[in-house]
Structure formats: C-alpha cells, structure tokens
C-alpha cells in the first residue's frame, strides 16, 4: 500500500516536469554550449518560456562615432547595434555602408563578472589571513581553523611545488606569481562549480592569458644556458633539426598548459550539464525512463561533481607545477 502511494506521489511530482519537457524538446549540445558560453546577462532560470536573468553592464565603443555606450543588459541596443546570432550573440555594429563590424567591446559579461567575484573572494581570503598575522609574531601559536588551512595550502604549494621544482637559487622572484596563479585557477574552478555560476577556466581566453603570463615568466628571465639549449642544441650535426624542435617547444609548452586547463574544465562542465540534461530528457520518455535515467544520471551527476571538485584542485596544481618546472628549466645551473 505504501509503495503504491509513493509511486503515485512520484508520478504526480513528475507530471509537470514531463508536460514541460514535451513542450520544449531538449537539444542537449545546444543547452550545454549555451551554458558554457559567455553572455551579456546572468541567466538564473527559465520558467514557462520566460527567462529570468540579471542584466550585466554593456560597455561598447561605437566604430562610427567613437562614442562609448554604457548600459545594463543587451535587450535593447541603440540604433546600429545588434546581437549577431552568427557570431555567438555578440554585439555587432552595422556601418553606414551596410557592412557589419565588431566594435570594441569591454562589457562586463558573465565570465568577466565571475572573474571579479573570484578576485574579491581571493582578496578577502588572503587579506583576512594576512591580517591575522599582523597582531602576532613568530613566538605565538601556529594558526588553526581557516587561517591554518590557508597557511597549510599556501606553504604546501610554496615549499613542495614551487621551491622544489624551480630550485633553491631562483625560486624567490617567482613564488608570489605562481602562488597567485595557483589560487586564481583553484578559486576560479571552485566558484565555477557553484550552481548558477558560469564557466571561466573553460574559456580559452582565460587560459590563454594565464599561459601567456607563464610563457613570459619562463622566457623573460631565462639564463644564458637556457637560450644556449634552445638555439645551440648539441650534438651539432643534428643542429638544424633540433633547433626547430627547440624553438617550437618554447611555444608548445605554454600552449599545452592553455589547452590542458581549458579542455579539462570545459569537459567537466560539459559532463555535469549533460547529465543534468539527461534527467530532463528522461522525463520526456515516459515514467519508466524518467525514473531509470533520472536515478542513473543523478548518481552519476553526484559522482562527477565530487570528481570535479578534485579536478578543480588537480588542474590548478598541474598548471602551477608545470609552470614551476618550466621556470626551473630556464634557471638550471650549468652542470657537468
């Protein structure tokens, strides 16, 4: 009797979901891509065909007049501007001669907003931690609780990752940069896992900039020995071949960093979104499929979510580790 009751109850609960799903057939790739992409608004949820979202500041410089246009949201744009559906819904401008161009657009999009949220979070966390130390000296007790956790994490990265991989003689100038990189990626990844938040490290622009910084940090301060290995690799009879691979290697190392972080985070988000979509998809296929797929996807979703928390740390760790290794290679003392 109880079982029948619960089945009836679940059927009743699933009814509105299935009716909604019948109305809007789900195109999973479309939904996933939409959630991964940047936007001029912070989409919260859709209900009954109505999207509820927070409009974000749009800052565009007109190509025609050179004027700056600042407004909230891109629902209504001034004359001459339009959202180009062929270019992922970015703001484009139609010039007087009929051609369309992409104006200078530094809108605080969803991704940009989330970057600033991460920045504020990082500043809050580390400045609070730093303030804790202000009233204490080395003779007072070691911190516990939150400050202790941050200290432990910082010192783990600083000692085990940066110091040991760059080497004792050269790690100091890079320690702060690499710590910033690690915590920036780590915090961004974690914030990206909070529901309603967007996808930041799964955007190639973000990882490109991080990799560019690392490339500068590696090559900008490299010693003579490093450049000797790039341009005068031994043995000499293989010089033409080796110099090409070495020069390409200078660029492939940061490129690999960029793609690895991007692909991992993007794939993680895509998997989470796909399993969520499968639950909704199952709801359109009748009660049995709704239960079966729902249960399966729900379990997988929870599992993947836990994995993603792990991946958030691992990817930040790997990016910092490889950056430290590359910097270490550029500062290797001449042995033998």
């Amino acid at each position: 009797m109880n079982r029948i009751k619960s089945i009836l109850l679940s059927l009743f609960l699933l009814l509105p979901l299935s009716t909604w799903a019948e109305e809007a057939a789900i195109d999973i790739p479309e939904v996933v891509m939409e959630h991964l992409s940047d936007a001029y608004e912070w989409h919260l949820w859709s209900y009954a065909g109505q999207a509820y979202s927070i409009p974000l500041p749009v800052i565009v410089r007109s190509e025609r007049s050179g004027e700056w246009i600042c407004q909230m949201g891109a629902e209504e744009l001034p004359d001459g501007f339009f959202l180009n559906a062929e270019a992922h819904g970015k703001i484009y401008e139609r010039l007087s001669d009929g051609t369309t161009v992409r104006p200078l657009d530094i809108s605080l999009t969803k991704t940009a907003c989330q970057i600033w949220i991460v920045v504020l979070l990082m500043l809050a966390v580390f400045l609070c931690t730093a303030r804790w130390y202000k009233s204490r000296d080395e003779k007072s007790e070691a911190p516990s609780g939150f400050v202790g956790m941050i200290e432990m994490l910082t010192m783990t990265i600083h000692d085990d990752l940066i110091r040991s991989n760059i080497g004792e003689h050269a790690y100091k100038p890079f320690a702060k940069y690499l710590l910033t990189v690690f915590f920036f990626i780590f915090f961004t990844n974690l914030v990206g896992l909070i529901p309603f938040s967007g996808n930041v490290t799964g955007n190639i622009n973000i990882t490109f900039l991080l990799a560019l910084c690392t490339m500068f940090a590696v090559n900008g301060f490299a010693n003579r020995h490093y450049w000797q290995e790039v341009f005068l690799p031994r043995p000499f009879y293989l010089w033409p071949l080796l110099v090409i691979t070495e020069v390409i290697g200078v660029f492939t190392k940061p490129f690999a960093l960029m793609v690895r972080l991007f692909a991992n985070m993007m794939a993680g988000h895509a998997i989470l979104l796909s399993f969520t979509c499968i639950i909704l998809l199952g709801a359109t296929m009748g009660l049995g499929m709704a239960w079966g797929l729902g249960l399966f996807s729900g379990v997988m979703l929870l599992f993947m979510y836990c994995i993603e928390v792990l991946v958030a740390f691992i990817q930040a760790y790997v990016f910092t580790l490889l950056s430290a290794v590359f910097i270490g290679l550029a500062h290797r003392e001449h042995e033998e």
Partner: protein
Amino acid sequence: MDLNSLPAILTPDLGLLFWMLLAFIIVFIVLAKFGFPAIINMVEERKAYIDESLRKAHEANEKLANIKAESEQLLREAREQSAQIVKDAAAARDSMVSQAELKAREESARIIAEAKAQIENEKQAALNEIRGEVARLSVGVAEKVLRKELSSDAAQMEYVDKLLDEVSSKAK
C-alpha cells in the same frame, strides 16, 4: 579562418582578455604585496624560531650535563682534599708529638746533666770546704795539743800526723 565558426568558448574575445588581464594584475599586485609575503615570512620566521629554540634546548641540555659532571668532579676533588687534609693533620700531629717528646727527652737529659754537674760542683766545693775546715780544725787541735804537750816534740808530731791521717781518711 573564420573564428566565428568555432564554438563560443574557443572564440577570442578582446573584452574578456582585457578584464582578465586587469583582474589578474590587480590580484597579483595586491596579494604579492600584502597577501603571500605575510604568510610566507611568518611561517619562515616561525620555522627559524623553532630551529633556534631546538638548538638552544640542545645546548642547554649539554650545558646541564657538563655542569653535572663538573659538580661531580668538584665533589670528588673536595672529598679527596678533605681526606688529604685529615691525613696531613694526623701526620703533623704525630710528628709534633714525637718532636715534642724528643725535645722533652733532650731537655730532661740536659737538666739531669746540669743537675749532675752542679751536684758534682757542690760536692767538690763541699769537699774543699770540709778539707779547709778539717785543716782548720786540725790546726786548732794541733794548737791545743801543742799547747798542752810541748815536751816531747817528736812524739807529739807523730801524734799530730796520726790524727791528721785519721781525719783525712775519715773525710775521704
């Protein structure tokens, strides 16, 4: 290549790059100046302090062991010294006693000898005196005899001699 044919997340976006660069630079500058150095310096200072404390504790331990050994050494030395002093004192006492004994013996011998000499002297003096007295007496006796019997000289002289001899032998 038309970049718009790529998925949205692969499309370069100048605005996003700008914001990312700005945010990253700000967070890097602030944290590199106020965030991480506070943590790292404090941890390193604490590490140095702990190392220093350990080193000091080791040193203090060593010192304590040294002091213990030193005090034991001192105690042993003092004990030895006191034993030596007692022994020395005993020896000194013995030698003093024996010396005093010797001196006393010498002194007594000297006194005895002196006494003997004095006695001898006195005896000699007494003898001399007696001799003198005897002579005087004998002279007196002789006088008396002479006065009484002046008739026969020869017999009387003989008598005197006899008397004198008697007296002298008696005195002897």
